[in-house]
């Protein structure tokens, strides 16, 4: 497999015209499956991510949990969130969730991005930032429902998980998948991963007694290329910032796609209007105007 095949572009931010190519592959969509029920919080995926992407090790920040730091960072893309949750029935759960970019089918970051080619979505579902085209406006931060893109004040660019597009393009699994010791992380085609998730959910519901167990693949943003199995899919919020119905702000969808062009045309009507005024009504000169010279065959004068 070469990346020419696996990383065909599907969408480009701020770009005029269509993008090339379709139908080259039988199973285009790739997916990462995260089974939160078998995560032990070992952070091997965090280390693998930092190592593969050659990012400096971060100073950890103790916040009364086992979490490495409160949130992901512009050069720390993968973070296990440790959530201590007391349920309504008094039971206690220690929930660990690997947090990173969700690679949405309808990416809010891409919708918000005003820079041509700064964000691309590949046909296989990976949403990737092209930092050389990034203008550093941080609209993607506003567009993302998962608070994923992180701004670097040093480089004035935004960074996030690439789903190891460089590895996937060469037919390899992402680094985090390779590092996981419990089999909590899986990687494959979207349909395979959904099938695996469904199987695990059924097992959790029937064998382990998690009646609310389910798959997290939010359809409000067209599904994601990172899918979770949760013990309690009815309340994903308790996994630390996993919105039940993630949404892109309307200003980056309806406003940007429809009202921006309409508004621009409406404004340009003023330009058309003044030209039309000059042609039909003509200028208004200081009075009295100099007398109009009579020319043979000329038209009559207008007094104003």
């Amino acid at each position, binding site marked *: 497999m070469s990346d020419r095949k696996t990383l065909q572009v599907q969408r480009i931010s701020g770009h005029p015209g269509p993008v090339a190519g379709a139908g080259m592959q039988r199973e285009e969509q790739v997916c990462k499956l995260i089974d939160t029920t078998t995560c032990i919080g070992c952070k091997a995926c965090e280390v693998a991510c930092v190592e593969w992407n050659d990012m400096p090790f971060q100073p950890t920040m103790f916040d009364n949990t086992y979490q490495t730091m409160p949130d992901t960072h512009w050069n720390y893309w993968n973070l296990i969130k440790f959530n201590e949750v007391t349920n309504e029935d008094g039971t206690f759960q220690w929930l660990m969730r690997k947090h990173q970019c969700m690679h949405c089918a309808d990416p809010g970051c891409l919708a918000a991005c005003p820079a041509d080619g700064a964000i691309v979505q590949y046909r296989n579902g990976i949403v990737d930032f092209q930092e050389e085209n990034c203008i550093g406006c941080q609209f993607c931060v*506003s567009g993302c429902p998962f608070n994923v893109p992180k701004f670097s004040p040093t480089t004035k660019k935004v960074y996030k998980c690439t789903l190891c597009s460089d590895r996937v393009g060469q037919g390899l699994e992402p680094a985090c998948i390779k590092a996981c010791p419990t089999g909590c992380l899986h990687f494959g085609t979207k349909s395979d991963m959904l099938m695996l998730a469904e199987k695990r959910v059924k097992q959790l519901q029937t064998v382990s007694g998690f009646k609310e167990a389910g798959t997290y693949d939010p359809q409000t943003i067209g599904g994601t290329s990172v899918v979770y199995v949760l013990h309690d899919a009815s309340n994903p919020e308790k996994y630390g910032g996993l919105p039940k119905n993630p949404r892109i702000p309307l200003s980056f969808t309806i406003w940007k796609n429809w009202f*921006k062009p309409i508004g621009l045309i409406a404004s340009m009507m003023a330009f058309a209007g*003044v030209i039309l005024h000059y042609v039909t009504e003509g200028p208004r000169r200081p*009075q009295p105007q100099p007398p109009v010279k009579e020319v043979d065959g000329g038209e009559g004068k207008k007094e*104003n």
Partner: protein
Amino acid sequence: MATSSQRFDRSTNHFINRIGLTVVYVGELLRHRAYTRFLHWAYGIFFFLALLSGFGIYMPWIFRWFTPLFGGGAMTRMLHPWFGLGFVFFFGLQAFNWAAAMKWGQGDTRWMKRLRDYVTNRDTIEPPDVGFFNGGQKLMFWEIVGGSIAYVITGVIMWFPEIFGRIAVAISYVIHDISALIMLAGIFIHIYLSTIGEPGTMQAMTRGTVSEAWAWTHHPAWYKQVTGRDPAEALAEARRTQARSSGDQSNQ
């Protein structure tokens, strides 16, 4: 008796209005002093810098050719807030300079009601209650004041999104755009009326003076205030002089 023109001068004789030189020739009236003209062109330049850099970001798939003017997308994004601040700073000074002259009055409401007559050039000269600025100019001025306040608030939110959060940015973005679209429409009308739409207007912002004929045509009440003469009478007299001189020419 202090003439109305002296009263006018005294009211505007602030030290800042003594900066620079404006030569007023016979047959002309002082319209804008050097300080006013300087401010106008200062925020005019910043307006266009902010407009071009802003529209390069507003709709890159049409206006991507604006961003290279400022050194590429990242540079454009970096400069745009500063262009905007430059505009707001100089316009803010102008707002204080003009606040009194821009006070809305009964005459301005009447002016707005007869906007159609203004657009269709129905009247030879403006109604006698049109002063230093007409209703349209005042409306545009106050729109820019309001728009500038909106620009600053929403612009700062978008400049420092980590402080204000993603929803505040998403809302600000729309308000910022609407303000820009209104001003884009306004700038066409402003440039048109000050150049080919109403000849003789441009020199008010370059040399600082206008002809008396321009004054009684477009701002009769202001003409009366500074000269003490009735604009209609002045026009009638100018017409008689013109008729005499053209009569002289035809006799030759």
